[in-house]
């Protein structure tokens, strides 16, 4: 028995003031149900991924909210692991199916962020960090900036290396009709944008976004021509940066990815296409190293070389990543799985990676306290 992605549904990502949480959920879930041909009544469980709804809008109890929209009575769960909520939700659903207790699961990530002020959202996002980090007046960009400064000091990574991540992801985003930003940018534009938390400028940071993404995972006996999950792995590390062994790597990513490669029986070289968690440009550089795509410390040069562009050897973030596609927190991990699914099925249109057979998604919570890795194959 294998677990296959039998349906996907995604909304546009962006500043969607005319769409409510429920509107977005209905749109994504509806599309997934239609594509999968699994009727709502056949959904055995709903897993809803979200981080900020309770904090920003006062709405909790989201699992039941989704089943209400689908008009079903199945069990429903809400999963929160900061920005890794989507990946972690998929991991739970995958385990539930593997256990044999359910056959079809809807995993949906929804986030409404643009109804609120930047300060409110920034403060809410710091809920993913440690209390003493909040007391030290830190922000999310600040936490990754601290890692960036340490990486620059230790490995001579430069601001230009980081800018190359944003430029590439915008190039990919320009090919994605659902992406929040579809414009091309240059290294100069990134370097000249306003400082947010040194060395990170505005264009080093993923935006605030509304959006929803849903998949249906099903137990299948015949997996031919279907995209199946070869591995689903979650690992955690200390919530606060100060307590970690190293601030120039994400240990949770290393552990989860090594477990995933083992589960799938592959090595990092076998990954044809990847969606990684570029909440900030430095995060993608760290991911290249932590996932084993390149040697420790070489992440900057790796990205700058162009090797992670569509058409090159290690296409990464073909969706535009978090930077260009947008980052509706709870939805991102699911969006990544949808993007890889489309790539493996040959349905990625202008973003298609030729002959992609094995794909990887990398979804991180907070400054690296949670990492969820999925390996998909067709």
């Amino acid at each position, binding site marked *: 028995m294998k677990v296959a992605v039998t349906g996907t549904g995604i909304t546009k990502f962006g500043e969607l003031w005319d769409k409510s949480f429920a509107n977005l959920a209905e749109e994504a879930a509806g599309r997934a149900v239609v594509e999968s041909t699994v009727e709502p009544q056949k959904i055995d469980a709903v897993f809803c991924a979200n981080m900020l709804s309770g904090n920003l809008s006062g709405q909790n109890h989201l699992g039941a909210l989704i089943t209400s929209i689908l008009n079903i009575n199945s069990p429903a769960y809400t999963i929160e692991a900061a920005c890794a909520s989507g990946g972690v939700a998929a991991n739970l659903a995958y385990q539930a199916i593997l256990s044999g207790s359910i056959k079809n699961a809807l995993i949906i990530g929804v986030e409404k962020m643009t109804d609120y002020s930047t300060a409110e959202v920034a403060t809410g996002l710091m809920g993913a960090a440690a209390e003493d980090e909040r007391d*030290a*007046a830190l922000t999310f960009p600040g936490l990754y900036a*601290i890692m960036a400064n340490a990486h620059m000091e230790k490995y001579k990574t430069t601001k230009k290396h980081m800018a190359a991540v944003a430029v590439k992801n915008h190039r990919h985003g320009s090919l994605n009709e659902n992406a929040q930003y579809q414009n091309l940018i240059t290294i100069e534009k990134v370097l000249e944008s306003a400082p947010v938390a040194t060395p990170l400028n505005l264009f080093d940071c993923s935006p605030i976004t509304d959006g929803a993404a849903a998949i249906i995972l099903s137990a299948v006996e015949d997996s031919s021509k279907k995209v199946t999950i070869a591995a689903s792995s979650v690992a955690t590390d200390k919530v606060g940066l100060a307590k970690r062994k190293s601030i120039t790597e994400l240990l949770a990513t290393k552990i989860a990815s090594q477990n995933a490669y083992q589960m799938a029986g592959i090595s990092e070289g076998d990954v044809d296409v990847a969606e990684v968690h570029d909440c900030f440009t430095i995060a993608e550089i760290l991911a290249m190293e932590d996932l084993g795509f390149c040697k420790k410390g070489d992440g900057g040069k790796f990205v700058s070389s162009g090797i992670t562009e569509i058409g090159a050897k290690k296409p990464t973030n073909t969706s535009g990543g978090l930077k260009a596609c947008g980052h509706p927190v709870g939805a991102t991990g699911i969006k990544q799985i949808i993007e890889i699914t489309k790539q493996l099925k040959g349905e990625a249109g202008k973003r298609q990676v030729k002959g992609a057979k094995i794909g990887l998604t990398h979804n991180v919570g907070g400054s690296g306290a949670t990492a969820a890795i999925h390996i998909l194959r067709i």
Partner: protein
Amino acid sequence: MIHSPSTIWRQSKNIPDEVGKNGKIVSFTRIFAAPKGFEQQVPYYTGIIKFEDGTAKPLEIIDANENSIKIGAKVKTVIRRIGLSEPEELIRYGPKARLLK
């Protein structure tokens, strides 16, 4: 964010052990977009400090500028106000890392 009396009371008990400690900057950043309660300080430095006793903690770094702040610089913790409390709230006091010259 409202810091309740009991939260502040519980946290203040640690203050004597957190003030007057010597340490070094592990890494830092200068923040230009602040969270609620810290907007009036922008721009400001914050980072991770490793203390002589081996422990590490995130702390605001004060009395620093572009030329003086760097990884490895020595700091000493002092007591300061943390953030901006609302008029009817309690004042929050806590440690910050003062850059030593």
